[in-house]
Protein backbone atom coordinates (compact mmCIF):
# COMPACT_ATOMS: atom_id res chain seq x y z
CA UNK A 1 0.00 0.00 0.00
CA UNK A 2 1.11 3.55 -0.77
CA UNK A 3 -0.44 6.69 0.66
CA UNK A 4 0.24 10.05 -1.00
CA UNK A 5 -1.19 13.20 0.58
CA UNK A 6 -2.40 16.31 -1.23
CA UNK A 7 -3.58 19.43 0.56
CA UNK A 8 -6.33 21.80 -0.48
CA UNK A 9 -7.83 24.53 1.62
CA UNK A 10 -9.06 22.79 4.81
CA UNK A 11 -9.01 19.45 3.06
CA UNK A 12 -6.49 16.63 2.90
CA UNK A 13 -6.76 14.14 0.07
CA UNK A 14 -5.07 10.78 0.50
CA UNK A 15 -4.46 8.89 -2.74
CA UNK A 16 -4.22 5.29 -1.64
CA UNK A 17 -3.00 2.47 -3.85
CA UNK A 18 -2.23 -1.20 -3.50
CA UNK A 19 -3.38 -3.61 -0.82
CA UNK A 20 -4.71 -2.62 2.58
CA UNK A 21 -4.21 -5.69 4.76
CA UNK A 22 -2.82 -6.95 8.05
CA UNK A 23 0.63 -5.56 7.23
CA UNK A 24 -0.39 -2.16 5.89
CA UNK A 25 -3.62 -1.13 7.62
CA UNK A 26 -1.78 0.22 10.71
CA UNK A 27 -0.15 2.78 8.40
CA UNK A 28 -3.55 3.88 7.07
CA UNK A 29 -4.92 4.08 10.61
CA UNK A 30 -2.02 6.23 11.73
CA UNK A 31 -2.34 8.60 8.77
CA UNK A 32 -6.07 9.04 9.37
CA UNK A 33 -5.80 9.58 13.12
CA UNK A 34 -2.96 12.07 12.72
CA UNK A 35 -4.89 14.11 10.18
CA UNK A 36 -8.11 14.07 12.18
CA UNK A 37 -7.19 13.95 15.86
CA UNK A 38 -3.88 15.79 15.85
CA UNK A 39 -4.15 18.20 12.94
CA UNK A 40 -7.93 18.56 13.24
CA UNK A 41 -8.27 18.81 9.47
CA UNK A 42 -11.91 19.70 8.76
CA UNK A 43 -12.16 17.34 5.78
CA UNK A 44 -10.20 14.21 4.94
CA UNK A 45 -10.89 12.63 1.56
CA UNK A 46 -9.73 9.13 0.66
CA UNK A 47 -9.23 8.34 -3.01
CA UNK A 48 -9.59 4.55 -3.06
CA UNK A 49 -9.53 4.25 -6.86
CA UNK A 50 -6.21 2.40 -6.94
CA UNK A 51 -6.91 0.09 -3.99
CA UNK A 52 -6.67 -3.49 -5.18
CA UNK A 53 -7.63 -5.22 -1.96
CA UNK A 54 -8.88 -4.25 1.47
CA UNK A 55 -9.32 -6.69 4.33
CA UNK A 56 -11.26 -6.45 7.58
CA UNK A 57 -8.39 -4.73 9.35
CA UNK A 58 -8.46 -2.08 6.61
CA UNK A 59 -12.18 -1.62 7.14
CA UNK A 60 -11.52 -1.38 10.88
CA UNK A 61 -9.06 1.45 10.19
CA UNK A 62 -11.67 3.28 8.14
CA UNK A 63 -14.18 2.88 10.99
CA UNK A 64 -11.64 4.26 13.44
CA UNK A 65 -11.09 7.20 11.12
CA UNK A 66 -14.84 7.74 10.93
CA UNK A 67 -15.17 7.72 14.73
CA UNK A 68 -12.29 10.17 15.04
CA UNK A 69 -13.86 12.47 12.45
CA UNK A 70 -17.13 12.48 14.41
CA UNK A 71 -15.29 13.16 17.68
CA UNK A 72 -13.54 16.23 16.28
CA UNK A 73 -16.43 17.38 14.08
CA UNK A 74 -14.61 16.76 10.77
CA UNK A 75 -15.76 14.92 7.67
CA UNK A 76 -14.23 11.68 6.37
CA UNK A 77 -15.13 11.14 2.71
CA UNK A 78 -14.46 8.16 0.44
CA UNK A 79 -14.46 8.14 -3.35
CA UNK A 80 -13.32 5.94 -6.22
CA UNK A 81 -14.70 2.73 -4.73
CA UNK A 82 -14.09 -0.17 -7.09
CA UNK A 83 -15.90 -3.50 -6.97
CA UNK A 84 -13.65 -5.05 -4.33
CA UNK A 85 -13.86 -2.11 -1.96
CA UNK A 86 -17.62 -1.80 -2.47
CA UNK A 87 -18.13 -5.51 -1.77
CA UNK A 88 -16.22 -5.30 1.48
CA UNK A 89 -18.16 -2.29 2.73
CA UNK A 90 -21.34 -4.11 1.78
CA UNK A 91 -20.23 -7.24 3.65
CA UNK A 92 -19.52 -5.03 6.66
CA UNK A 93 -22.91 -3.30 6.31
CA UNK A 94 -20.98 -0.05 6.36
CA UNK A 95 -21.88 1.42 2.98
CA UNK A 96 -24.55 3.68 4.43
CA UNK A 97 -22.46 4.86 7.35
CA UNK A 98 -19.66 6.42 5.31
CA UNK A 99 -19.95 9.57 3.23
CA UNK A 100 -19.21 8.20 -0.23
CA UNK A 101 -19.00 10.06 -3.56
CA UNK A 102 -18.45 9.07 -7.14
CA UNK A 103 -15.45 11.28 -7.84
CA UNK A 104 -13.01 13.81 -6.51
CA UNK A 105 -14.92 16.88 -7.70
CA UNK A 106 -17.94 15.89 -5.59
CA UNK A 107 -15.73 14.97 -2.65
CA UNK A 108 -13.99 18.33 -2.44
CA UNK A 109 -17.01 20.47 -3.37
CA UNK A 110 -17.43 23.37 -0.94
Amino acid sequence: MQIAARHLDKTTIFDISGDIDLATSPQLRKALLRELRELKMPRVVLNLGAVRYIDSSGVASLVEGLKASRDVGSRLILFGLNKTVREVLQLSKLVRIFEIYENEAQSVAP
Partner: protein
Amino acid sequence: MLCVVRNAVGELTAKLGFSEPDCRAVVRAVDEALTNIIRHAYLGEQEQPIEASFHRIDAPKDGQSGDALEIVLEDNGVTANPEKMCGRALEDVRPGGLGLHFIRECMDTVEFSRNNGRNQLRLVKFLHVQAPKKGA
Protein backbone atom coordinates in the same frame (compact mmCIF):
# COMPACT_ATOMS: atom_id res chain seq x y z
CA MET B 1 3.34 -12.96 1.82
CA LEU B 2 -0.44 -12.67 2.28
CA CYS B 3 -0.42 -10.85 -1.04
CA VAL B 4 1.28 -13.79 -2.71
CA VAL B 5 -1.32 -16.16 -1.24
CA ARG B 6 -4.16 -13.91 -2.41
CA ASN B 7 -2.86 -13.81 -5.96
CA ALA B 8 -2.17 -17.53 -6.11
CA VAL B 9 -5.63 -18.36 -4.73
CA GLY B 10 -7.22 -15.82 -7.05
CA GLU B 11 -5.59 -17.44 -10.05
CA LEU B 12 -6.48 -20.93 -8.82
CA THR B 13 -10.15 -20.12 -8.29
CA ALA B 14 -10.39 -18.42 -11.69
CA LYS B 15 -8.83 -21.52 -13.23
CA LEU B 16 -11.35 -23.74 -11.43
CA GLY B 17 -14.14 -21.79 -13.10
CA PHE B 18 -15.50 -19.68 -10.23
CA SER B 19 -17.20 -16.42 -11.18
CA GLU B 20 -15.27 -13.22 -10.50
CA PRO B 21 -17.22 -12.33 -7.33
CA ASP B 22 -16.81 -15.93 -6.10
CA CYS B 23 -13.07 -15.79 -6.77
CA ARG B 24 -12.88 -12.61 -4.71
CA ALA B 25 -14.96 -14.25 -1.97
CA VAL B 26 -12.65 -17.26 -1.68
CA VAL B 27 -9.55 -15.04 -1.73
CA ARG B 28 -11.10 -12.89 0.99
CA ALA B 29 -12.01 -15.86 3.18
CA VAL B 30 -8.54 -17.39 2.93
CA ASP B 31 -6.88 -14.03 3.59
CA GLU B 32 -9.04 -13.31 6.65
CA ALA B 33 -8.56 -16.84 7.96
CA LEU B 34 -4.77 -16.57 7.66
CA THR B 35 -4.84 -13.13 9.26
CA ASN B 36 -6.81 -14.55 12.18
CA ILE B 37 -4.40 -17.45 12.59
CA ILE B 38 -1.43 -15.07 12.68
CA ARG B 39 -3.13 -12.61 15.03
CA HIS B 40 -5.05 -14.89 17.36
CA ALA B 41 -3.56 -18.38 17.20
CA TYR B 42 0.06 -17.20 16.92
CA LEU B 43 -0.41 -13.92 18.83
CA GLY B 44 1.08 -11.87 16.00
CA GLU B 45 4.06 -14.02 15.12
CA GLN B 46 4.43 -14.33 11.37
CA GLU B 47 6.97 -17.11 11.16
CA GLN B 48 4.87 -19.89 12.62
CA PRO B 49 3.84 -22.82 10.43
CA ILE B 50 0.45 -22.74 8.73
CA GLU B 51 -0.54 -25.66 6.56
CA ALA B 52 -3.01 -25.33 3.75
CA SER B 53 -4.56 -27.76 1.36
CA PHE B 54 -6.75 -27.02 -1.62
CA HIS B 55 -8.91 -29.77 -3.07
CA ARG B 56 -11.66 -30.08 -5.60
CA ILE B 57 -14.30 -32.23 -3.91
CA ASP B 58 -17.81 -33.57 -4.37
CA ALA B 59 -19.81 -32.41 -1.39
CA PRO B 60 -23.46 -32.90 -0.50
CA LYS B 61 -25.55 -29.89 -1.42
CA ASP B 62 -29.32 -29.49 -1.24
CA GLY B 63 -29.74 -33.24 -1.09
CA GLN B 64 -27.61 -33.65 -4.21
CA SER B 65 -23.88 -33.66 -4.69
CA GLY B 66 -22.08 -30.54 -5.79
CA ASP B 67 -18.68 -29.70 -7.22
CA ALA B 68 -16.76 -27.65 -4.67
CA LEU B 69 -13.39 -26.30 -3.60
CA GLU B 70 -12.33 -27.43 -0.13
CA ILE B 71 -9.64 -25.48 1.68
CA VAL B 72 -8.20 -26.72 4.97
CA LEU B 73 -5.94 -24.49 7.07
CA GLU B 74 -4.12 -25.89 10.08
CA ASP B 75 -2.00 -24.28 12.77
CA ASN B 76 -0.28 -25.29 16.01
CA GLY B 77 -1.25 -22.11 17.83
CA VAL B 78 -3.23 -21.49 20.98
CA THR B 79 -6.59 -23.19 21.24
CA ALA B 80 -9.37 -21.03 19.86
CA ASN B 81 -12.04 -20.08 22.38
CA PRO B 82 -15.31 -21.20 20.80
CA GLU B 83 -17.25 -18.48 22.61
CA LYS B 84 -15.24 -15.79 20.88
CA MET B 85 -15.40 -17.47 17.51
CA CYS B 86 -18.83 -16.18 16.74
CA GLY B 87 -18.11 -12.81 15.21
CA ARG B 88 -20.30 -9.96 16.38
CA ALA B 89 -23.46 -8.04 15.61
CA LEU B 90 -22.73 -5.65 12.77
CA GLU B 91 -25.22 -3.06 13.99
CA ASP B 92 -22.62 -2.08 16.54
CA VAL B 93 -20.36 0.15 14.42
CA ARG B 94 -16.87 -0.22 15.81
CA PRO B 95 -13.51 -1.29 14.47
CA GLY B 96 -12.61 -4.99 14.48
CA GLY B 97 -14.57 -8.17 14.75
CA LEU B 98 -15.36 -8.39 11.03
CA GLY B 99 -13.04 -11.18 9.95
CA LEU B 100 -15.13 -14.18 10.97
CA HIS B 101 -18.21 -12.50 9.58
CA PHE B 102 -16.48 -12.07 6.20
CA ILE B 103 -15.35 -15.69 6.21
CA ARG B 104 -18.88 -16.94 6.92
CA GLU B 105 -20.42 -14.69 4.26
CA CYS B 106 -17.87 -15.65 1.65
CA MET B 107 -17.91 -19.43 2.01
CA ASP B 108 -20.63 -22.08 1.97
CA THR B 109 -19.17 -24.13 4.82
CA VAL B 110 -16.97 -22.92 7.67
CA GLU B 111 -15.91 -25.47 10.31
CA PHE B 112 -13.45 -25.03 13.14
CA SER B 113 -12.07 -28.07 14.95
CA ARG B 114 -9.15 -29.03 17.11
CA ASN B 115 -7.33 -32.37 16.81
CA ASN B 116 -3.99 -33.54 18.19
CA GLY B 117 -3.06 -30.10 19.41
CA ARG B 118 -3.78 -28.45 16.07
CA ASN B 119 -6.50 -26.01 15.06
CA GLN B 120 -8.20 -26.86 11.82
CA LEU B 121 -10.37 -24.58 9.72
CA ARG B 122 -12.27 -26.18 6.87
CA LEU B 123 -13.74 -23.92 4.20
CA VAL B 124 -15.90 -25.08 1.31
CA LYS B 125 -17.16 -23.10 -1.68
CA PHE B 126 -19.48 -24.62 -4.24
CA LEU B 127 -18.82 -24.08 -7.90
CA HIS B 128 -22.03 -22.85 -9.39
CA VAL B 129 -21.85 -24.51 -12.73
CA GLN B 130 -24.52 -23.11 -15.01
CA ALA B 131 -27.14 -25.67 -15.85
CA PRO B 132 -27.12 -26.41 -19.56
CA LYS B 133 -29.94 -24.59 -21.32
CA LYS B 134 -32.62 -26.91 -22.58
CA GLY B 135 -34.14 -26.32 -25.97
CA ALA B 136 -34.00 -22.50 -25.91
